[in-house]
């Protein structure tokens, strides 16, 4: 990474990557196959029926979803995680800490998250991140640019792993 990103930016990138992979794994583990899913192996919680602390988090997520995705209500992944107050609280706080503007811009992080979700074929997180980007103004062309990078690097990763190519690219001194 030699395009003006320092160690803080690289660490943020790692955070976006592992967080997206973790959420995609959680969604798949719950058998949430779409942002529009109504079925999960664990029942979602409605904020009206939640205990106070969980209700506050779900309402915060719902407000964010309205603004960032143009959708009413908290997405189902969060409503399912709400079954464990500690789980939803820690994961939502992490989401906000990692995905808001930092050394990297929030929109660049979201495009990166979409690429990660595409690469691991995590349909729920593909739709989730695409919805945020669409609402921010990304077009079909933009989503295809993300896909093109994912596609090309899947090619390069496959070749380099298959041939066990040793890296000859070193960090700057």
């Amino acid at each position: 990474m030699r395009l003006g990103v320092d160690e803080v930016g690289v660490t943020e990138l790692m955070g976006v990557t592992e967080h997206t992979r973790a959420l995609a794994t959680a969604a798949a583990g719950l058998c949430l196959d779409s942002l529009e899913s109504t079925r999960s192996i664990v029942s979602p919680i409605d904020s009206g029926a939640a205990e106070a602390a969980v209700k506050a988090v779900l309402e915060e997520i719902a407000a964010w979803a309205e603004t960032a995705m143009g959708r009413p209500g908290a997405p189902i992944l969060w409503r399912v995680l709400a079954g464990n107050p500690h789980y939803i609280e820690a994961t939502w706080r992490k989401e906000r800490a990692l995905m808001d503007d930092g050394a990297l811009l929030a929109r660049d992080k979201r495009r990166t998250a979409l690429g990660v979700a595409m690469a691991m074929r995590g349909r729920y997180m593909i739709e989730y991140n695409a919805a945020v980007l669409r609402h921010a103004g990304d077009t079909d062309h933009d989503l295809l640019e993300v896909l093109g990078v994912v596609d090309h690097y899947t090619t390069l990763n496959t070749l380099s792993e298959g041939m066990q190519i040793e890296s000859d690219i070193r960090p700057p001194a």
Partner: protein
Amino acid sequence: MTTIRMVDPAAATGKTKEIFDAVLRREAVVFGATAVSNIWRCMGHSPSLLEANWNRSRALMQRGRFTPLQRELIATAVSIGNACTY
């Protein structure tokens, strides 16, 4: 250890040399490379594969509305997810 010998850019000819030269020009700008990187040298055994992937690299990594940084962020994250150490 790399499982195949890499093509020596100094010994490359024809289409392979032409693409190696273009790769080096590009990589010198992007990350200060002074030699053709190993992944392209490995592809050099198949000029058709080398050319096809170089053309896709130009199409997908050098053209469009995203900045080089925006593309590189996605590329790096995908490579991490694919557990690719290269």
